[in-house]
């Protein structure tokens, strides 16, 4: 009997798996099923589309001929929503009633945004910024002079606020916790970013509980908060986090923990079934318990490993290392690995290091485990050089060298032909 491969999902992890699988195996029939219609698009780019940096067509990262070239049957749209994964009889049941058989399966079904459980949260003025459909719906609502309220202050929330600001909306951000980006930035970085947001006349209210929404009779809403009273808005964007679409493989889940657990080969506990991307809870580059890193780069890496192993290649994943970067309110904001230090760890903080406004590198037993930084775009290029050190667990000497050379070369650059601005000098110069 011919082996068959099915892939649930059509984004970073699924595409990466598919391409890798085909490097090993040109023969085996592959079916890709996705509840979202059409060819693959890039979720990461949605804010750039709303910010008019790219056109709608720029969001699509694969063409229909790509699927043909890959020898794949793509079943996409709401009728392709997977209703059941039957691992015993090796088939998927789709919403359309159709069955898709498989011998090996990859679940790359991603994650979905969560909404705070408050009255009125399902009002039509409330939007998410997660799917292509969300973005297309938001696009005509971002009118100059309109009032935008953003609930949450993570990467997605603040990107929405930044887009709203640039398109001339009056933007307000409310965050439940005491400071913005509570899981993405450390306190000093969050403070700097808050100041920058304030300087762009976007109001940020931290420590603010949203308690409900009500129609204002003119198409907008009043958002009630415990601390501030009602806030008026024409459009509300809620971005308070995501949760994995992991119910498909309930048999593999662990009680009380979200995400399908996978090992270093991206295999689940179910024979021949793999998981990758936002839906997977996998090993990290830093060791410790399995974690969900709902990030594009992690999805690409995990997909690659899963794709190879679907073909029987026995590729082993070094573990995910979270990385995130975006530019907003005049700063490039970068985070890498673990950004909160625990006791006994050494913390190196640099301020005003040429283009880098703030940089913190955490070392554990002489090995860097993470960094967070705010600065110009080249900040990202400097932090990128730390990534191999974290991955390979390279010792204190290298880290010191990178950081010290960075400082030394600032003095050094004073005796060299001067660059027009010092911005582009790298932290590690060799």
């Amino acid at each position: 009997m011919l082996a068959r491969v099915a892939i649930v999902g059509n984004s970073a992890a699924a595409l990466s798996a598919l391409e890798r699988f085909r490097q090993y195996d040109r023969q085996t029939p592959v079916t890709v099923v996705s509840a979202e219609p059409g060819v693959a698009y890039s979720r990461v780019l949605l804010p750039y589309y709303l910010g008019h940096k790219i056109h709608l067509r720029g969001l699509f990262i694969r063409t229909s001929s790509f699927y043909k070239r890959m020898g794949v049957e793509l079943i996409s749209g709401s009728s392709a929503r997977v209703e059941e994964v039957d691992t015993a009889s090796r088939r998927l049941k789709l919403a359309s009633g159709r069955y898709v058989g498989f011998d090996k399966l990859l679940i790359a079904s991603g994650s979905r945004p969560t909404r705070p459980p408050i009255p009125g949260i399902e009002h039509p003025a409330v939007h998410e910024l997660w799917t292509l459909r969300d973005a297309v719906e938001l696009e005509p609502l971002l009118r100059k002079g309109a009032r935008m309220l953003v609930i949450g202050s993570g990467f997605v929330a603040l990107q929405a606020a930044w887009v709203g600001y640039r398109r001339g909306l009056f933007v307000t951000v409310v965050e439940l916790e005491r400071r913005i980006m509570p899981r993405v930035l450390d306190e000093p970085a969050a403070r700097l970013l808050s100041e920058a947001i304030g300087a762009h006349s976007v109001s940020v209210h931290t420590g603010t509980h949203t308690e409900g929404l009500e129609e204002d009779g003119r198409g907008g809403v009043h958002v009630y908060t415990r601390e501030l009273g009602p806030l008026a808005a024409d459009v509300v964007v809620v971005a308070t986090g995501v949760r994995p679409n992991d119910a498909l493989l309930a048999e593999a889940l662990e009680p009380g923990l979200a995400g399908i657990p996978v090992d270093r080969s991206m295999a689940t506990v179910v024979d021949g079934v793999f998981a990758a991307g936002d839906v997977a809870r996998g090993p990290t580059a830093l060791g410790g318990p399995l974690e969900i890193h709902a990030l594009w780069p992690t999805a690409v890496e995990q997909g690659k490993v899963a794709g190879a192993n679907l073909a029987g290649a026995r590729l082993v994943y070094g573990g995910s290392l979270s990385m995130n970067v975006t530019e907003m309110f005049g700063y490039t904001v970068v985070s890498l690995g673990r950004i909160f230090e625990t006791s006994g760890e050494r913390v190196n903080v640099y301020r005003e290091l040429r283009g880098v406004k703030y940089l913190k590198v955490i070392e554990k037993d002489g090995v860097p485990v993470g960094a967070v930084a705010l600065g110009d775009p080249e900040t990202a290029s400097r932090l990128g050089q730390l990534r191999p050190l974290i991955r390979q667990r390279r010792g204190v000497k290298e880290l010191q060298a990178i950081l010290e050379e960075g400082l030394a070369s600032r003095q050094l650059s004073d005796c060299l032909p001067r660059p027009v601005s010092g911005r582009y000098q790298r932290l590690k110069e060799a």
Partner: protein
Amino acid sequence: MRIVLADVGLCVACRGCEYACAYEHNGSFERNASLMRVSFYPAARVAVSLTCMHCQEAWCLEVCPAGAISRDSDTGAVKIDASLCAGCKMCVLACPFGNIHFDHERGVAQKCDLCSGDPACVRSCTTGALRFVEPEDVAVTRRETLDARLLRVLATQRTGAAE
């Protein structure tokens, strides 16, 4: 495919390659605009010129959420299509060598594209430190050089021991 190779022993840190690259790609003579960067360590009397290595498994290419990075079928160069780039900087963070830069004016990432197979940096190099070569040839050269050096060292040691 051919790569740009720097002979650290021949580089005099004139930065001609930086200016040539900046002019070729951005029409300017600002070092910032160069995709080739020369790091000069006066105390050690060493200058290291470095640009994209066009990695075989290019993480920037794999991670680009816009599908804007691809490998040129002729030159093997890993290239960014500026018309597809959204400016998200994921590739800038992904590069382990810090070899991808950001063009503020156009808001896109920029990197070495080997100038379609005739790199301006190599053309402009006055000392011959930069060469555009097949890696295989380099490996052979290096092996011969290394062996020759080893033989010299061993010969000296043996002579020393005999005396």
